[in-house]
């Protein structure tokens, strides 16, 4: 299983973090907090992805994740391992 850009956008929509019209415009390489996803919404997004992918992100590794690309790379490296 590979996490994709579409999976992250779907999680943003399902968790009602952003409306679909805004979620579909999220840029992969731009910090999420600069695109309307603040710290609490970011935790929510990570939780939804953790539940869907069956992995847990320790607190000290959350601080390294800022963009959608960071998240996709992180999850895919964990799932590949």
């Amino acid at each position, binding site marked *: 299983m590979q996490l994709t850009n579409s999976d992250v956008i779907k999680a943003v929509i399902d*968790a*009602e973090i952003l409306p679909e019209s805004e979620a579909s415009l999220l840029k992969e390489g731009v910090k999420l907090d600069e695109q309307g996803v*603040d710290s*609490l*919404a970011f*935790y929510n997004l990570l*939780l939804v992805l953790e539940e869907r992918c069956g992995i847990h992100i320790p*607190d000290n590794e959350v601080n390294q994740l800022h963009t959608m690309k960071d998240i996709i790379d992180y999850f895919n490296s964990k799932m590949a391992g």
Partner: protein
Amino acid sequence: MNMLGIENIASYIPEARISNFDRQETFGIDAKFIEQRIGVRQIALKSNLEETSDLCVTAFSNLLQKLVLHKEEIEVLVVITQNPDTNIPHTSAIVHKKLDLPETCACFDISLGCSGYVYGLSVVLSFMSTNGFKKGLLFTADPYSKIIDPSDKGTALLFGDAATVTLLSEQPSFTPLKFTYGTSSKEYSSLLCQQGKLFMNGREIFNFAAKHIPPDVTHLLRINQKTVQDIDKFVFHQGSKYILDTISTRLKLDTQKVVFDMAEYGNTVSSSIPIILEKEITGLENRLILISGFGVGLSWSSTLLERRTLCS
């Protein structure tokens, strides 16, 4: 034996407030974060001269504004707190003295946080039933201002002081149905007081609430043979607006039925549910209310409160 339940509730929220809008620059937050995320515009703050037991006494005075209660009728007094006047004795004994209650009245404290009120209802009603008691007082008072570091963004913007008292009797307006309980102790250190200071891991608390409370509500409804549509009001512990919104989203609840009330006083720990119930139990349209408390421990407890009528 007649059925025991909630006859009435009174609360005391200290008048003093600290505005979160005045602290935007200090904590690097904006109005959207205050209104839509934590959902707390200002927190209630007790006076330094007020002890936990004093908050209880004032709540009791407010109860006496609503009804006639003879002190000699009170057979049990319980205080839910983790911020007592002192470690020894139990705060309920101090409240007992300040209210000048009879020596025959049983007193004990319950050490629980945000799940405390729901646990407390179950414990005290069972205690009263076992002993054939007819009137009891269940207090909540957990003034976190005693343990909050004013410079800690994660807690200083969120928690407020308050106390409540619930009169439990054989003339109930609401009685509980079946309860649920739970403990996720592997995360206990996510909300911890050490060396007199409160520490909270906001992400862990959010994850705990989002993962555990929706399935608990579903389980509670199932064991009581009810559906979401049967519930007139959902009264969740007021952890933060974002936590309530997330629980509501996950359960696909009608947001009109989910009570949000903490904006002007903050998260008052075990008092959050009874502060809301005090208002909601007076609304005759509310016949079935779901209450769910969750937090310190990390623990949770939920039940349904059903309105009693003269015929029921």
